[in-house]
C-alpha cells in the first residue's frame, strides 16, 4: 500500500527528465607519487605506515610494533603470528578479547589514505572493528590515484560486505578534541611491500 502511494506521489511530483552527466575522469588526473601521497594521507588521519622489502620480514616487523599482543588472528597467508584461528562458523561475540588482527588489503587509495577490504579477506565481519589493533598488508602496486579508480578496480567483485578504511577509529565529539580510539580499532598500521 505505502509502496504504491509513495511511488505514485513521486511520479506525480517529480521534475522533467534530466539526463545523467558524462564523467570525464581526465579532469581529476594528477601526476603524483602514489606511494608517497598514500603514506602522507594515511599518516594525516592517524594511521601508521611501515615500508619493507622482503615478505619474510613481515612477522618480525609486526612483532616489533606489537610486542604485547597475545590474542592474534591472521587472515593473511603471509603471516604466521596467529594464536587463534577463525572460520565462518566463528561466533562474532567470541572475538571480544582480540588484541591484533592481520588482514591482506586489496586496494589503497592515494588521495585519502583509504584501503579497501572485504569480508572475503577477513571472514568474520566484525573482525577489523572489534580488534584492539589492526594491521593491513598492502602491495605498493595496488595503490591507485583516487576513488574513481578504486571503484573501477572493485567493480567486478562479488558484493557482500566491504569497506574503505582510512585510519584508526576516532572522534572529536568532546569539544572538538580529536581522540584516537573510539568504538573500532584503536590503531591501524599498513605494512607496505
Amino acid at each position, binding site marked *: 500500500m505505502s509502496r504504491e502511494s509513495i511511488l505514485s506521489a513521486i*511520479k506525480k511530483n517529480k*521534475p522533467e527528465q534530466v539526463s545523467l552527466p558524462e564523467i570525464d575522469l581526465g579532469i581529476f588526473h594528477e601526476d603524483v607519487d602514489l606511494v608517497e601521497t598514500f603514506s602522507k594521507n594515511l599518516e594525516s588521519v592517524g594511521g601508521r605506515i611501515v615500508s619493507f622489502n622482503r615478505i619474510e620480514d613481515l612477522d618480525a616487523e609486526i612483532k616489533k610494533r606489537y610486542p604485547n599482543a597475545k590474542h592474534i588472528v591472521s587472515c593473511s597467508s603471509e603471516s604466521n603470528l596467529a594464536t587463534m584461528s577463525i572460520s565462518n562458523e566463528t561466533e562474532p561475540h567470541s572475538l571480544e578479547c582480540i588484541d591484533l588482527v592481520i588482514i591482506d588489503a586489496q586496494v589503497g587509495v592515494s588521495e585519502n589514505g583509504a584501503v579497501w577490504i572485504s569480508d572475503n579477506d577477513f571472514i568474520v565481519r566484525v573482525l577489523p572493528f572489534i580488534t584492539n589493533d589492526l594491521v593491513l598488508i598492502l602491495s605498493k602496486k595496488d595503490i591507485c590515484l583516487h576513488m574513481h579508480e578504486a571503484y573501477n578496480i572493485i567493480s567486478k567483485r562479488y558484493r557482500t560486505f566491504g569497506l574503505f578504511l582510512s585510519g584508526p577509529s576516532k572522534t572529536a565529539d568532546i569539544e572538538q578534541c580529536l*581522540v584516537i580510539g573510539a568504538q573500532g580499532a584503536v590503531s591501524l598500521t599498513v605494512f607496505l611491500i
Partner: protein
Amino acid sequence: MSHAKEAELFNNDEAKVNWHDQALWFVRNKRDKAAHTVKGWEELRNLASAIKANVLSNLDEYLVEFEENAQKNGIHIHWATDAEEHNKIVHNILLKNNAKKVVKSKSMLTEECHLNPYLEVNGIEVIDTDLGERIVQLAKEPPSHIVLPAIHKTKEEVDVLFQKHLGTIPSEGNPQYLTSEARKHLRNKFLKADAAITGVNFAVAETGGIVVCTNEGNADMGVHLAKIHIASMGIEKIIPKEKHLGIFLRLLARSATGQPITTYSSHFNKPSEGKEMHIIIVDNGRTEQLGREHFRSSLNCIRCGACMNTCPIYRRSGGHSYKATIPGPIGSILSPGTDLKKHSSLPFASTLCGSCSDVCPVKINIHEQLYQWRQIITKDVKQPIVKKTVLKMTGRVLGNSKLYGFFGKSARFMLKHLPKSVINSQTNTWGKARDLPKVENDNFEDWYKKRKS
C-alpha cells in the same frame, strides 16, 4: 518561540557563544583546506549536483530498481509513508525477533521520526552509539548539529554527565579519558544488543546496496554483532550507480569535517549467513517537497553540515535555537515544508550572505530558497504588526525620492544630536548590542553634486 527569541537565550552565555562560533569556523576552515587540495573540486560539485538532479527526475524508477536488487541479495525492503508507519515497522521487526536491546548509529531520519521515545514506551532499550549522540541522549537533549551532535556541550558538562550515568571519576573534562570510558560502556552495549539500527548515507540503485559512513566504527560494531540490521533511509538517498560513490565520498567528509574521507565507509550488500537485514524506505513529507519547484533541490542534501559550520547565524545561535531536527540553513528550507507555521521564523534566520550555497557540495542554492520561503511566509503566515508597519513605511520612503531625502536628513540629524539612550532605545533592536555608525556631514547625493560642480 521564534528563532530570534531562542537565539537570545543561547547568547546569554557570551563566552560559550564565542567558543561555539570559533569551533565551527575552524571546521569550516578545515573544509576549505581539504577542498583546495583536490584537483577538479568544482567539477566534483557540478557532477554531484547533476547526478542528484537526475535522481529526482527518475526517483520512482531508481527506488524500484534498488528494491529489486536488494531483494535479490536477501535484504527485506519496507516502505513507510510517514514517521508513525516507520516506527511501527521497526517495532514489528523487533517484536518478531524478540529483540529488547537495540544499538543505533547516527541517523537523522530516526531522529525526525522520534523513533527512540516510540521504542522506549514499548519497553525496548535504545542506545545511541555515536559518542556525540550518546552524550546528548544521556543529557536528554536533541542533537544540535547533524555531524557534531554535542557541539553545544563543554567538556566539563560531559564530565559531569558521565560521572552521573557511567560512574566515571572527575577528570576536569579530559576528552581522552571520557572517550575511553565511553568506549568501554558502549562495547558492553554492542555485545548485548539484539538488533542494530543505522542510517543510510547512500543507497545504490544499480546494486541494491547501501553505504554507511562513520568515524567511530559504531555502525559496524553494532551491525556485525547483532542478529538483525535495520537501516532507515529517506527516499532521496538513492544514487544511480556504484561508481557515483566515487564522487560523493570525495565530497562528503571533506565538506563535513575537512577529513579526506570518513574512517569507515561500509558497503552493505548482503546480510551475513544466519542474519537478517531490513531497509525501510521513508517518505515523511519528501514527495511533497519534491513537488515544490523552488524547493525540491533541497532533497539533494547529503547531510555534511558544511552550511551550518559556515553560517554566521547558526554559529552564533546554536543548533537548538532552530527547534527542528535539521538545524541551520538547509534545515531552514526543509522544515517549513513540513510545518510552515511552526517553522515560519527559520527562513529569516539568515543574512542571505550566500556562504551556505558556496560551500554546499551538491550546490543547493540554499540562500535563494530561504528568500523564496520568505516570499511565501509573509503571504501565508501572520507577521508581527511592528514588522509589517515598519516594512510598509520603509517601502513608501524608499519609493519616493523626496521622502527618502527628508527622512535621510532627519535620521542623520537625530543620530548626530540625540543622546545614545534615545537612539538605542527599545524599538531599535540593532542597538541592543551595537552602536549605529558615526554620521558624516554629507550623504552620498550631496557629496556627488558638490564634486561635480
